[in-house]
């Protein structure tokens, strides 16, 4: 396949915490403008792998990695790459909604401001909130604290904040795990809309969510001998859920796991 179809390519990726190898031998291509989900049992290294894509693991003192992640042909871990610039292009939404203790408006504006945005801030705020399907709910209280919103609204605020920076890729680590089913559906709908402009990678524990909301799925599992996570199977989501190639995958998605 053409290089251009991939937003990110992990090659021979190994991630360590101190001497413990948390993730091993990952070969994985993330397709541009598609939604890719990571599924797998707790502790198998999904978050670790996801954070590697925008160098968030750099913030963990004991973590280091081997191998490479290529973005448009450039290895993000080359020594001349600035992790700050990487994160401007590859944004992240976290498991627990974490809006800043600032106003709703400033939550959106702040990231754009530090990224040197010079246009009309009011427009950007409205546009970002609209893309995150939150505008109608908050348009009359933009000066209230972001923390005054409900959990689901907070998470959409976090997505809006990420969109405002205009990244190319959005990484989401279990973005719906703190939300009720309706808020969850809203976010999934939102992901489908965002997909036209962004490449999305999402970690989820929810099998239905992976099946519903993603185009590609990677199943990770933990090697019982060294407790390192490895990728069992990667495929189009439909394929993976209808005819898994691997017995472990089948066991996991049919709930016969462990």
């Amino acid at each position, binding site marked *: 396949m053409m290089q251009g179809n991939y937003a990110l390519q992990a090659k021979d990726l190994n991630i360590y915490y101190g001497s413990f190898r948390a993730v091993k031998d990952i070969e994985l291509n993330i397709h541009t403008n598609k939604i890719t989900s990571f599924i797998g049992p707790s502790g198998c290294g999904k978050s670790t792998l996801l954070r590697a894509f*925008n160098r*968030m693991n750099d*913030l963990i*003192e004991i973590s280091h990695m081997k191998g490479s992640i290529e973005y448009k042909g450039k290895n993000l871990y080359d020594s001349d790459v600035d992790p*700050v*610039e990487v*994160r*401007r292009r590859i*944004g*992240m*939404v*976290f498991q*627990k909604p*974490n*809006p*800043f*203790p*600032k106003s709703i408006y400033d939550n959106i504006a*702040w*990231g754009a401001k*530090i*990224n040197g945005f010079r246009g009309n801030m009011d427009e950007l705020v409205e546009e970002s909130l609209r893309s995150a399907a939150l505008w109608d709910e908050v348009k009359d209280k933009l000066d209230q*604290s972001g*923390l005054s919103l409900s959990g689901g609204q907070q998470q959409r605020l*976090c997505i809006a*904040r*990420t969109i405002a*920076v205009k990244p190319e890729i959005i990484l989401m680590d279990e973005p719906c795990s703190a939300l009720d089913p309706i808020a969850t559906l809203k976010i999934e709908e939102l992901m489908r809309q965002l997909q036209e402009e962004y490449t999305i990678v999402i970690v989820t524990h929810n099998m239905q969510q992976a099946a519903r909301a993603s185009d590609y799925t990677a199943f990770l599992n933990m090697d019982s001998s060294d407790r390192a996570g490895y990728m069992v199977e990667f495929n189009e989501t439909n394929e993976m859920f209808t005819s898994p190639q691997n017995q472990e995958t089948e066991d996991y998605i049919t709930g016969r796991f462990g």
Partner: protein
Amino acid sequence: MASETMANTIVKTETKEDVARSLAKKMRPRESLIQGFLFICGAISILTTVGIVYELSKEALLFFRDDRVTLVEFFTGSQWQPAIEQFGIAPLVLSTLVTSTIAMFVALPLGLASAIYLSEYASSRVRSILKPVLEILAGVPTVVYGYFALTFMTPLLRNIFGSDVVQIFNTASAGIVVGILIVPLVSSMSEDALHAVPDSLRQASYGLGATKLETAVRVVLPAALSGITAAFVVAISRAIGETMVVAIAAGAGPRNFEWSDVTQNYSGTPFNPFTSAETMTGHIVRISGGDISYNSIDYNSIFAIGLMLFFITLLLNVFSRRIVERFREVYD
């Protein structure tokens, strides 16, 4: 115990009385003992404060009752000369104001910067070395700081600004050293406040492509504002109350002046940091250390000064709390 387990196992045959007995309020002597002990500890600290205020007020009242003293003179007079019965507190208050202001100008930037460094930048190894050093600094007796001011800071200031400008005893030297003295306090309290900011906020910030500096100054710092202000308030109170350093290095006599001096002869007022002046605390120790008799007006005057100190600190506390309420970013 045995009857309890029985009651639990044969639930069906439990009579109403059994249930009542097993649900009945139990004496928990240890709980009440500890609760009582904690209450007493809390009560002691409150009672101490009340006691201090009572004692201060009682003696201060004797002072204000005296015919030679008027409240108007006390608050507006610019001469404090008990020998000739002049009791204007301004020279003492203003000197305190000058030393504390200088101290805060030293302590806040230094303390806050080191807190930010320790909490946001330092690796755990560096932190494990630096924190004990700061704690040792906080443990140095203040009298040592006093002589540090006199024998190091003052000569330094005289070298820089000229010995004809800077007197041997001066409030600048004392203020700067008081500032250094409270750096560890500001730093460790501010660091606690910064440290308490949830990591998820830092992650959010980095995830948006913020640099370390942007994250520290524009996300973590505002979120920690209320804790940091608490640090500042404690630090200001400490600076106002600090005694040894000012007693040694600032001067041993009130800097009396005329109100007209403030505009016409600035260098003759307590606002000039390079001349000697006595602060409220400095004056209190000097007078109480001398051989004055109890119940003399001199003796009573120091309680009036003490009460004044108490109210200034109290007001500062109240005001800064107000300010914080307006500006703080609540994160939980």
